[in-house]
């Protein structure tokens, strides 16, 4: 497929860059998308805030810190993808910019669009903070969002104490620098990542002190309710069972049916308290480290910032963006990977390729509709040649052939995706977080860590009958801190829905406006509207 020629990102004036395809995020989804585009000769601009490509699962694989005997094969499997991505970037087939954060995004309105973008529709403007700390603006003609997932905010008394961390954070420290807690940690919560971390700690010779699992012990019963799904999920289930067996053999105590959890300490964690379902006695445990996990949810900022509709998924206990079959969320924008709903790394890769194919398909369609424009654009030459008509016909034919090949490739990927995701739904069922967790926490539990707003304060404010989370935010400052509500948003909606007897879709979520990721006032002074000054500094 040589019809889509690489084109450099061009500045329309001294400062503003314009790119044909921008990919946000260099996790499995973003890397796969950029590689598939590169294969078609299209050089995508890939922006990621991390030091190296890989995303959450394949983090720091450019310089792996611990071998597969500790981290597991699934992690090291990513080396092939990360290697291919970095090679392509080195060859100039991908324009990869690490250490670059997207903090602002908007659709160009039509008038602006005509002026800035030669009338090309569906372009978006991004505010990007580079590795140098300077904010710039760029225009994306087409956009693939692959910003992945984050760990769910899981409040309990004392979760703000130093010494309490998310399990994923502890795993990041292993990947980043082979760092482990001094002294064995207590792990608490639920979900595959919690057990993966326990297993990795065990492999590293630091078995966790104890695992406090909040899941009701229904595993097998639930599994057998969906035999077909169980079969499709057999890979995941077998892996989980093997890990659990290894942990048991090593003597790591697993306490099931944990109903309540609290972290204790003054300026840092010194111990945890927990209670089991149907057991009146509270248990205490001294520990310096509590690593918690309650599943991952789509990272909401970019899709929300673009105003994309979300729907509540009871099974995942999460808001999930509305995507069409081809993964598009609005004209010119596709959403691939765990940012569009949790499907895991293999699925993210598949979705990245699907999104790339959807972009290529559109470009093909453009080529078939108005061949002269595209040829002129792609070659950067305006003067018609004598044999131009003939060339156009040839280009059109090869575009048609390519479009058919794309359709075949997409269909195969979609089929695999459907099968894989239907198995995944079983994992959702096995690891559903307790829906009433937030409302049954003691009143002093912080829901908003940034502004220090407690559950009791929220319940009191809910008595005044706010219409939605945004009004509640105005009443209490909940969600107004620098994390932009990412750790409290869903919990606040949940609390509101339960207290007011409404459903989650009706309650909704905070309205997300720029800055989408925190930018300090100092950095705002260098924001896009001032880009000309910035450039000359």
């Amino acid at each position, binding site marked *: 497929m040589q019809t889509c020629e690489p084109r450099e990102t061009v500045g329309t004036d001294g400062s503003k860059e314009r790119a044909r395809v921008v990919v946000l995020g260099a996790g499995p989804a973003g890397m796969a998308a950029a590689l598939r585009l590169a294969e078609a000769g299209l050089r995508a601009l890939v922006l990621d805030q991390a030091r190296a490509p890989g995303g959450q699962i394949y983090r720091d694989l450019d310089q792996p810190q611990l071998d597969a005997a500790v981290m597991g094969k699934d992690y090291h499997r990513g080396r092939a993808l990360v290697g291919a991505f970095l090679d392509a970037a080195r060859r100039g087939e991908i324009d990869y910019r690490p250490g670059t954060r997207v903090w602002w995004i908007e659709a160009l309105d039509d008038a602006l669009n005509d002026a800035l973008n030669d009338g090309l529709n569906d372009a978006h403007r991004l505010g990007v903070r580079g590795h140098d700390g300077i904010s710039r603006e760029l225009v994306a003609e087409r956009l693939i969002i692959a910003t992945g997932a984050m760990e769910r905010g899981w409040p309990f008394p004392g979760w703000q104490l130093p010494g309490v*961390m998310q399990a994923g954070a502890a795993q990041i420290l292993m990947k980043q620098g082979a760092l482990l807690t001094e002294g064995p940690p207590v792990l608490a919560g639920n979900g595959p990542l919690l057990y993966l971390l326990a297993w990795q700690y065990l492999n590293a010779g630091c078995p966790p002190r104890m695992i406090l699992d909040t899941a009701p012990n229904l595993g097998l019963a639930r599994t057998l309710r969906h035999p077909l799904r169980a079969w499709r999920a057999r890979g995941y289930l077998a892996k989980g069972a093997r890990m659990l067996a290894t942990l048991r053999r090593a003597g790591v105590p697993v306490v099931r049916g944990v109903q309540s959890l609290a972290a204790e300490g003054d300026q840092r964690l010194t111990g945890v308290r927990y209670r089991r379902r149907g057991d009146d006695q509270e248990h205490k445990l001294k520990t310096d480290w509590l690593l918690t996990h309650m599943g991952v949810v789509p990272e909401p900022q970019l899709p929300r910032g673009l105003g994309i509709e979300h729907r509540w998924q009871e099974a995942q206990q999460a808001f999930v963006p509305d995507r069409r079959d081809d993964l598009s969320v609005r004209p010119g924008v596709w959403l691939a990977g765990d940012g569009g709903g949790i499907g895991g790394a293999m699925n993210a890769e598949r979705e990245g390729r699907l999104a790339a194919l959807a972009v290529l398909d559109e470009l093909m369609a453009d080529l078939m509709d108005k061949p002269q424009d595209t040829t002129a654009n792609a070659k950067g030459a305006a003067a018609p040649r004598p044999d131009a008509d003939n060339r156009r016909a040839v280009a059109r034919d090869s575009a048609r052939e390519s479009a058919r090949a794309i359709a075949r490739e997409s269909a195969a990927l979609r089929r695999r995706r459907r099968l894989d995701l239907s198995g995944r739904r079983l994992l959702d069922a096995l690891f559903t977080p307790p829906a009433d967790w937030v409302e049954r926490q003691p009143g002093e539990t912080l829901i908003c860590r940034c502004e*220090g707003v407690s559950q009791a304060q929220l319940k009191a404010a809910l008595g005044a009958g706010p219409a939605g989370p945004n009004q509640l935010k105005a009443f209490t400052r909940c969600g107004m801190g620098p994390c932009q509500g990412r750790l409290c948003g869903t919990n606040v909606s949940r609390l509101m829905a339960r207290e007011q007897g409404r459903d989650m879709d009706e309650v909704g979520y905070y309205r997300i406006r720029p800055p989408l990721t925190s930018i300090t006032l100092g950095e705002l002074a260098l924001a896009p509207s001032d880009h000309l000054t910035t450039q000359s500094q």
Partner: protein
Amino acid sequence: MFKRHERATATPEVTITIDGAPYQVPSTLSVAAAVLMHQGAAGYRRHAAGGHRAPLCMMGVCHDCLITIDDAPNRQGCLVTVEQGMRVRRQLDEAAATATRWDTANHASGDEQRGRDDADL
């Protein structure tokens, strides 16, 4: 504190200072990871409400890792990779904690200040 595993891959190191004292750390670490390695979680930063906080997520979400890097306050320590000669300072006094609140506030829009909401628009 966090300790580096004895079977860790040999990795080039850089020297940074934390509150004035020099430390050698692997060049792959984020600033937050370097602080956790050498100072631990206790006393990582002071929160405007008074208590101490330390990194929760290590991936840019929670903002409990805010720290001063080369005199620039309130950087997200988990998103900045260490560099040779970097000067890291923990924000532990009250003035710094208050300033953090203003500097990073997700300032309410007009609609929110008027107490309006999607649901009633």
